């Protein structure tokens, strides 16, 4: 009897989830963040419905603080695979001048990500939204179901989650309620990179090391983009580095690295003794901050 490799087993599980959602919901949508996890999730969806097209659109919540390379990649990638792409921004908040430097990261995230996401989901009438989050990323995510129920305000109640057994998912929601679905729940960061290698999946070049203009702030490297205000004594300089996870430029730290290819990244990961979201400023703005953001509707 043959057995699957762990990547094949993860792939089979994720494809099962993607198809279940497409079959049971009226209007699913896939949150597309342009990062490596999104790239893997889109590839899995292509496989799940081959030779048909993706039976749902992609949705990108654009805070306007994304890296230029990310937006270029997004537009090229979506055109290449023929995906329907919806881009949504909280234009009201942006017009009012919302930015992380003035509002602080917490409030900025609340307006430009969480609020924008909830508005976009309501506007589209979406009853299911795929996200690329993994349980190994952060401790409140370790507790989240594959099908994560959201009430009509888009809120998550971690103490009252639906039991989820075997591969039998409960897709029943009333009007206005929805389910966030995480097909990559059981993938680890290393699995994602190994799959990118095996499947030859294109990712944003920011993941690969090259010299970039950075300022050092404490132990974090902050890219000099979007007029990031420099603190007294900070001097931008070229640093050989790469992004380990992608967010908004002011809140995404880089890591020093020489890894400029996927195999080198995997080799680096195997050595790595620091967790992936460490350089995401927003996870650390308050104790238990991801759980709070998620309760409010953040992905």
């Amino acid at each position, binding site marked *: *009897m*043959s057995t*699957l490799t*762990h990547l*094949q*087993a993860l*792939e*089979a*599980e994720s*494809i*099962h989830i993607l*198809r*279940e959602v*497409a*079959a049971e919901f009226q209007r699913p949508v896939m949150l597309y963040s342009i990062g490596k996890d999104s790239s893997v999730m889109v590839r899995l969806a*292509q*496989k*799940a*419905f*081959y*030779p*048909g*097209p993706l039976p749902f659109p992609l949705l990108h919540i654009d805070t306007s603080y994304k890296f230029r390379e990310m937006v270029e990649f997004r537009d090229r990638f979506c055109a290449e695979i023929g995906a329907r792409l919806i881009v949504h921004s909280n234009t009201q908040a942006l017009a009012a001048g919302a930015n992380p430097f003035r509002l602080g990261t917490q409030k900025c995230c609340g307006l430009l990500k969480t609020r924008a996401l909830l508005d976009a989901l309501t506007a589209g009438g979406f009853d299911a939204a795929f996200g690329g989050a993994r*349980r*190994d990323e952060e*401790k*409140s995510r*370790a*507790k989240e179901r594959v099908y994560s129920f959201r009430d009509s305000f888009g809120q998550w109640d*971690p*103490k009252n*989650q*639906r*039991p*989820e*057994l*075997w*591969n*039998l998912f*409960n897709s*029943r*929601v*009333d009007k206005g309620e929805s389910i966030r679905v995480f097909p990559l*729940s*059981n993938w*680890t960061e*290393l699995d994602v990179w190994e799959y990118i290698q095996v499947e030859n999946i294109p990712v944003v070049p920011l993941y690969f090391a090259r010299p970039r203009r950075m300022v050092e702030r404490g132990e974090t490297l902050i890219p000099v983009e979007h007029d990031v205000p420099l603190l007294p004594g900070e001097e931008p300089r070229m640093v050989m580095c790469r992004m380990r996870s992608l967010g908004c430029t002011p809140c995404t730290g880089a890591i020093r690295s020489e890894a400029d290819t996927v195999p080198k990244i995997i080799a680096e990961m195997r050595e*790595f*003794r*620091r*967790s992936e979201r*460490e350089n995401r400023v927003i996870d650390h703005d308050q104790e*238990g901050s991801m*759980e709070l953001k998620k309760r409010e509707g953040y992905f």
Partner: protein
Amino acid sequence: MDDGKSTLIGRLLYDSQTVYEDQLAGIRKATKAHGGLDLSLLTDGLRAEREQGITIDVAYRYFSTPQRKFIIADTPGHEQYTRNMATGASTANLAIVLIDARHGVLAQSRRHAFITTLLGIRHLVIAVNKMDLMEYREDVFHSICGEFGRFAGQIGNPPELQFIPLSALCGDNVVHRSTRMPWYRGPALLEHLETVSLTADDHAVGLRLPVQYVIRPNQDFRGLAGQLASGSIRPGDPVMVLPSGRRTRVRSIVTREGELAEAFAPMSVTVRLDEEIDVSRGDMLVSPADPPQRVLRFDATLVWMNEKPAAADRPYLLKHTTQTLAARIVEIRHRVDIGTLAAQPAGELRLNEIGAVLVEAQRPLFVDPYRRNRFTGSFILLDALTNETVGAGMIESAAAEAGDGLPHTAAVSMEGKPEVLWLLARRLAECGHPVAVLPAQVLLVGPAGAASAPSAPSVEIRFTPAELAENPASAADRIFQELVRRGVTA
């Protein structure tokens, strides 16, 4: 109630070097107050859990060694979280039951062993923890092994047991073999996890491919997409489609990377059939030689997960493989005392209780006993009003009543009504049943898709001419409906 679970998992992650430095720095900061390194903090999740110092819900943790990749479902042990434990156990291959060496086998340990076995876990590790507090004594360990072994023997279909004495706090026998218990010659916990053989768990049944989704990008392509619940499939293989019973062959297995020569469980595949047969979500492709059971009523073990108790005759929705349909609990046969395994009479099942029930579905289901196949043998019950998942069931067997079992075959006899007989024969043939008309005006009906009609039918129906006095078409229709009711055709 702290038996050291969080510390054990923390130790497993820490000693196998899967803890990141910044996470460690986080715990160092949090434990600075009382010195030492509190590894249990590595697994704390929700705020309420940190505040109360307990585990409420299942948390999933990931680590790998060069030998294997592991997913730990970290589940709460308290009785009021039995449903969360069942959730974690439903997808696991192996369970670690933690016993505090100071307290020995408690009701809780027995409950854990019972629930994990019930959910189909065939390998149990009995981790006797806190040996450091019992001076690493051999007699303490052996007395616990003996007591637990006696209990496990009473569980139907007892699992394979591995007893390991350890100290999560001091790191004895977790990742590295301990030198403080020379009397123990078995493996350390991680060593056992890396080497235990899981292949025997597969009580192989034939092909089961529940159809999830039909892919139809254009007129020329119709692919049946789903994840194999068991068995394997190759182009050219004969398959039967349930519930229709139509037979055909596999034309190809389609993937984005090209066609496959073979696919096997648990792969997610897209299959094209030789003929254009009506197949939709909720149907199942199976091996004609080894089909699942067709059941309308069946016995199941039910774990109740809702505040509102389970009661007979309350309507529920039942999700089995890829279909959801109406169902009811006909009877609660008994409740299981999960500490002693004793069956108790029960009128209802309350939150976190487990019982034996008789379930009736609105339409026939095609199932395997849970112990043979987790995916075609399991179901969940949903509350149609609140949409909550209220129960999780494991199918034991088809109920010994009319309407169960597959395949059903029939002999229908009538006198003086040849026209009714032929109308009925034609309709059954159109549904894919082999039929044979005997001279004595008897119609033999085989299972849909079978090669020939049976000589020894399981259902016999006789009509007198007076009973078929209406016009031939409606008489034939009435008999057909009777055959549906008896489970001969769908």
